[in-house]
């Protein structure tokens, strides 16, 4: 998965207009970063063949942290 594909998928997941996220956004500032969104992110990482634990996800602070965790190129 490319970085652009990841950010686009996260825009959809967080119900933001396409092209909104740059990666620098703190997760706490994102209104729709809910427990459901976390599940969808885990699913997104799974499609990238990356297995994550929710604890690892909760340690992330920014969208870029999520990208690194999901081994996005």
């Amino acid at each position, binding site marked *: 998965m490319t970085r652009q594909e990841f950010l686009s998928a996260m825009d959809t997941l967080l119900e933001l207009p396409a092209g909104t996220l740059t990666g620098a956004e703190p997760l706490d500032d994102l209104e729709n970063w809910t*427990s*459901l969104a976390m599940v969808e992110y885990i699913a997104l990482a799974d499609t990238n063949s990356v297995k994550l634990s929710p604890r690892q996800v909760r340690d992330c602070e920014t969208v870029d942290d999520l990208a690194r965790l999901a081994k996005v190129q």
Partner: protein
Amino acid sequence: MKHGTIAAIEYYLPPDVLSTEHLAREFPEWSVEKIDKKTGIQNRHIAGPEECASDLAVAAARKLFASGACDAQDIDFVLLCTQSPDYFLPTTACLIQDRLGIPTSAGALDFNLGCSGFVYGLGLAEGLIATGQAENVLLLTAETYSKFLHPRDKSVRTIFGDAAAATWVRAIEGPTPSIGPFVYGTNGSGGPNLIVPTGAARKPRSEQSGIAEEDGRGNVRASDNLFMDGAEIFNFTLEAVPQAVDALLVKAGLAMPDIDLFVFHQANQYMLEHLRKRIKLPVEKFVVSMAQCGNTVSSTMPIALKAIIDENRLESGMTVMLVGFGVGYSWGATLVRWMA
């Protein structure tokens, strides 16, 4: 040799309905479209204040008897799967025996499982029949999770519904089982991720345990209420379910194309769709049937089976894979060669 076969299924949904529209009014930050998209659930049925699991189970069993499939007098063993029994004791299945007029020569027991319960129940029924201990097993699944939920915990109120199912598993002669083989799994380290922390022996209820707090994501609950870590549960299913499917196929000496229909525990539509894609199951073989009742815990699979029976999708001779997974963590998978 005798084996068990699923001869008939009926289910009961309590009359009170909690719609997605109602939930969207209660939780304005979530729209109807959002709840529907995330869960695939439009309505959940909720037991009334005086309605307990045994009431739902009795209603489902009476529907079964009224259908003409079998009679209470035929039943020689009652299995009740529930995590919300009427009492700590006596056994709720014993009370159900009395209410249904099942002969006093019948055996009856409760077993405490959730989402994997129907598969385990089929395993118990097959074991009872194959060892000559029973000929006609009434397998009941009944749950009133709604009574554990805090009214302001949208993370679970959108998901769970109350229901009961009654499945008649009867003995047939033949060399080959109609139900089986079985694959089971347990990982108790996941216990804290779907739990009602207080109210039983480990942590009795107290004034403190009833005090509700917000969890930082807008959900409110007390220790007396059901807690579910959705992300942890999802992670568990991604690990356990594909492995269980593979293990069952190996045990049965079959391959994926040999399976006609897949009926998984109907947890929520998003999770099901992800699992379907992950395991590469064709859409037309993958049963999703939860929009009108939600996640009814151990009743989701018998309800889904009944739905596809009524839709004429389930024909004699078909092989159906059942996979249950969830609270415990507990999981189980089996094959049913449909004969009804």
